């Protein structure tokens, strides 16, 4: 064996590193309004195991969040199919329900588009760097920075319009 080559990592050992993110995935699902975040996290991990060759091990969170988001949308579609009233109002891509600990923040978040809101929350709640958040959204880091900047402005405006004290938004974007 070439001494420069590392032996391929045992799949179980590799997966164990991915599985360590079970709690962040459950938190992600809970913050997006899933009624059963643990089930979403467990299913996300099961998919990660089946597609382990596609999961980046250095920081699998973007991949895991994308998978969890897809499962959340499937969960919402199923629940809206179960409800006659929801079916009448069904939209092709149901939006995530977001609840924060601050009612004014929740209201401001609800004024944003799904795209803007997700950009903000991946950074503010899931602690992803802009580069990783861009991965999770499937866009370039540059495009993400632009989206994040606009989302932040809209959010700040909406929060200010809610009549609560607010200072100009001067958050810096940390690079990775």
């Amino acid at each position, binding site marked *: 064996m070439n001494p420069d080559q590392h032996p*391929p990592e045992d799949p179980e050992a590799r997966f164990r590193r991915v*599985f360590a993110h079970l709690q962040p995935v459950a938190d992600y699902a809970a913050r997006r309004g899933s009624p059963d975040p643990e089930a979403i996290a467990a299913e996300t991990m099961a998919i990660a195991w089946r597609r382990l060759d596609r999961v980046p091990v250095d920081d699998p969170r973007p991949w895991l969040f994308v998978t969890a988001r897809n499962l959340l949308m499937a969960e919402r579609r199923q629940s809206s199919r179960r409800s006659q009233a929801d079916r009448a109002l069904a939209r092709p891509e149901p939006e995530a329900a977001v609840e924060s600990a601050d009612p004014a923040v929740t209201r401001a978040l609800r004024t944003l588009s799904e795209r803007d809101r997700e950009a903000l929350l991946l950074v503010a709640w899931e602690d992803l760097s802009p580069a990783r958040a861009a991965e999770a959204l499937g866009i370039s880091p540059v495009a993400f920075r632009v989206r994040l900047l606009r989302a932040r402005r809209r959010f700040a405006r909406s929060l200010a319009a809610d009549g609560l004290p607010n200072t100009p938004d001067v958050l810096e974007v940390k690079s990775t």
Partner: protein
Amino acid sequence: MNAMDRLRASRPAPAPVEADRDALFDRIVATPPGGPGARPARRRRKLVLVAAVGLAVTLTAGTAVAVSTNLFGWHTDNTFIKDPRVWRTLYRDATQELRLPPGMVWPSRTLPPHTITNRSEPGGMAVAISQTAWECYWTEAIRAGDPRAARSARAALSDLVRHHIVVAPPGSPENVAPPAGTQPPFEIYASDGGIRYVKHSYALAAAGDPSGVAQSCRANRGDLRIPPVR
């Protein structure tokens, strides 16, 4: 506090995962892994190719079966009509293919509002009206002792049974349609023995017993104005 700080501070508290993590991990890794080399790409491509060919064969065969069923067998009719004008046209066309007892005129019929039906239904209704009218006429003819009128009714009903009543296969859905080429108008009977009862009552009437046709007349005549036997 600026907006982003406030957003960060509003992050809902995490709810610790209560599931037994070790058990969940063991359960997941007990299934075949999908890691590198678990299923070579070439084999995957081959599987995809086989699946695609299988799907194409299934679809082609399915279409062939569907087409041949539509052409040669009973099938479900999904061509609905909802316009009363179309309904009345089909009904009128059907009445021109059928006969009524002497002196009787076709009653006015139409598609009720907010209703849809399939295209054979107006003709089926015309057949049912003709059948009931002749049954009533036959009943009166027997009771009036008019053999000529009775023979006329018997011939008309035999013609209806032979050419305008079809029996759907057992278990057919409500919107079943007979094989393409079945000449309209026709009434579709369910396969529940009804046609046997009809034929039996006609046989009784032919033997001079109007009880069966009289009962059918009473049950089905509704607003039909049947002229007296002349």
